[in-house]
């Protein structure tokens, strides 16, 4: 008699099967499939080999940036400098090769080192200088962009062949896609299997509890920003390799795409939550939407509106889902 149906009834749909759970935990992936299906129906140009490779290439730079950023966001920080650091790394690498007349492989490693170093500087400012990461990396955003312009004097510089190779093809597979996969595997490995990776989740979840359990919090913070810088450096090399030249205004605003990819992928800006697989899906969602809207001849102005809505909806659904769990 007292089985009054209540507002909470729909919640019963949760739990249940393993598949249902997987889908609930991977909302962005479901979204990506739905998106792909819709575009497949809407246009014959979507599901073609060349277009899919194109999506992979376009996703590579954003995804690699976002992989690095995932470390930082998991540890409850933010890195606004990744776009600028990518540009600085690419420019530095090109300068080492063209102006410094060093071998190409040194230019390649040099570019990555510049990225890692920039990240480490932000990391030290956060861990030891006690700057909020928003501020430290906002400063780095400006500093790195400025240095890029200083080095290049505002002009593009040609890249080393080793760097251009990153933008080329290996057989039929474009190198950026290979780099994307390798970078993703490395990032996921670090987060899941290394002590440092697990420490990142602990620091992001509760910094003080982590410290009291013996987690070297400052070392963890320096590491996440260094990794973020390193991945940004790699993304910068990918970008310049595709164009065979480092552009002073490259990757402007990419940090926002990277942040969007990470949060669409289910990470929490409050820290402690985030996965590389999610971030990859997030990056693909962004790129597939752009690609699809291009194929459908939607103006790039409207594309920005759509992307904004997607970010809001994706994160909104995710936080609603979390709210429906106890505590």
């Amino acid at each position, binding site marked *: 008699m007292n089985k009054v149906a209540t507002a909470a009834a729909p919640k019963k749909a949760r739990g249940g099967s393993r598949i249902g759970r997987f889908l609930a935990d991977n909302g962005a992936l479901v979204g990506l499939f739905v998106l792909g299906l819709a575009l497949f129906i809407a246009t014959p140009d979507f599901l073609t080999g060349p277009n899919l490779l194109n999506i992979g290439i376009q996703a590579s730079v954003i995804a690699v940036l976002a992989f690095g950023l995932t470390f930082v966001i998991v540890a409850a920080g933010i890195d606004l400098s990744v776009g600028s650091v990518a540009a600085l790394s690419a420019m530095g690498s090109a300068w080492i090769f063209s102006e410094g007349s060093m071998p190409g492989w040194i230019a390649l490693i040099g570019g990555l080192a510049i990225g890692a170093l920039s990240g480490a500087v932000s990391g030290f400012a956060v861990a030891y200088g006690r700057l909020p990461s928003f501020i430290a990396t906002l400063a780095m955003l400006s500093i790195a962009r400025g240095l890029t312009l200083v080095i290049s004097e505002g002009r593009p510089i040609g890249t080393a062949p080793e760097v251009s190779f990153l933008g080329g093809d290996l057989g039929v597979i474009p190198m950026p896609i290979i780099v994307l996969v390798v970078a993703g595997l490395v990032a996921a490995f670090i987060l899941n299997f290394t002590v440092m990776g697990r420490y990142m989740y602990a620091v992001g979840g*509760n910094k003080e509890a982590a410290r009291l359990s013996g987690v070297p919090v400052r070392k963890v913070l320096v590491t996440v920003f260094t990794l973020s810088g390193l991945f940004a450096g790699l993304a910068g090399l990918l970008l310049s390799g595709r164009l065979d030249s480092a552009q002073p205004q490259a990757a402007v605003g990419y940090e926002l795409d990277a942040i969007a990819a990470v949060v669409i992928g289910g990470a929490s800006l409050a820290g402690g939550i985030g996965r590389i697989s999610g971030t990859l899906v997030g990056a693909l969602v962004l790129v597939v939407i752009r690609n699809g809207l291009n194929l459908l001849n939607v103006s790039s102005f409207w594309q920005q509106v759509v992307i904004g809505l997607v970010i809001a909806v994706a994160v909104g659904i995710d936080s609603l889902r979390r709210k429906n769990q106890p505590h």
Partner: protein
Amino acid sequence: MSDSTMSDNPGTDNPILTLDNVIKSFGPVTVIKGVTVNVYPGKVQVLLGENGAGKSTLIKMMAGVYQPDGGRILVDGKEVRLPDTNASEALGIATIHQELNLVGSMTVAENITMGRIPRRFGLVDRKKMREVAREALAMIGLDIDVDHKVAELGIARQQLVEIAKALSLDARMLILDEPTAALTKREIAALFSVVEDLRERGVGMVFISHHLDEIAAIGDSVSVLRDGEFVAEVPADTHEDELVRLMVGRSIEQQFPRRREYDGPDATLLEVNGLSTKGTINNVSFTVKAGEIVGLAGLVGAGRTEVIRAIAGVDPYASGSVRVRGKELPKSSIGAAIRAGVGHVPEDRKAHGLVLGAPVNENIGYATLSTTAKSGLVDRAGQRKRAEDVADKLRIRMHNLDQVVGSLSGGNQQKTVFARWIVANSSVLLLDEPTRGVDVGAKVEIYELMNAITAAGGAVVMVSSELPEVLGMSDRVLVMSGGHISGELNADDATQDAVMSLAVRDVQRDLEDKLMEDGHE
């Protein structure tokens, strides 16, 4: 005042709110299995049960945070739905949470009028705002400056501000969720006199507390819950032993089952020498031997937590030394302390002890992640196995190791912190209020755990504000007062009076000054 309101004798008044046979599930787990509770005007209905018995879920249903999956909620005899907290507030139901809902950086007046700040020509009408706030404070006889920043008030006063805020929103039913947990004796008395006043005004109240002695002092009727089921409703003056029996389903023979079973070599594990910090602690020296539990008693603010934190390497100290098994620890190095075998169970497990959003498995393993790792890689299988074994041994009640620790009950959360140090083989355990917010059954389990640790040759330092616990479990009691150790008592000589007279020995005057200051405002 504490005459009973039994369910079969509701008196002349009708209940303000009734939970009628409510059921609540989260996924496959049913946490409330058909519970009925009535809240009458002018009565204090106590919800009693161990952590995890379902008290919080019940009050969240009353407040509209959760919606029942079965059963009915009645307000004034009419069935209602409470889809959110706004709905319950509109019906005059307010919750005073343990974590207060106040904005510390804003004034008392602003907090009381939050969400309905009086306006004049579209601007804040400060005069009206202060008036509303003063009226609200007058209702509970609280005399404080409404322009004071809330953060500057003590926790007890903040709580009263929150109650005043609820009353000024015309609340006629208050849910008090462990309101006494963070209060001193004196503050509790002040709170209870406010509750008395509210009773006379006809406000119905739901009261949750882990302190059984408070139930008879303040309650009218007690609803006892166990594992989500309704056990009994009894008058509030029911004997404590009977309440415990109803709550845990068995009688607890011994509240403090201290046994000294260590018979190994006589070794000093912890040696603290002349420890001083800038400001708080002053020349603290003591030793703890293998197999020993040393209680650190004293008033809040005597420096007990600071001593523990300095030993654990959490805070730096100005002078003195800490030795573990004869080896001096470097200052403020948590890592070095852990490697030497020190385990620290902090006072506030939610803020300092656990990563609430992370699984039990991870929380148990933090201190051993790096020591068991091979070339930087986590020993995942080993970590899991060790966590599983220790969780089993400590009987941590959970669905599985991957459950987030924040969804466990307080006692099981505390056991998780202990488990971390057991896995790390810590031999010197520094326990800061180890049973705070832990229910009776889990308390005894934690005491047994302390017995087991010392039986295996470990040493325990326990800070506790609960004197019976200090007296019942310690082999020696050190009493702190004003930042230094004012006396040491053997278990046989340690009585409440002896400890208290040492605790207030040097600070009596200081303390009274301080209390005067607090009372001023």
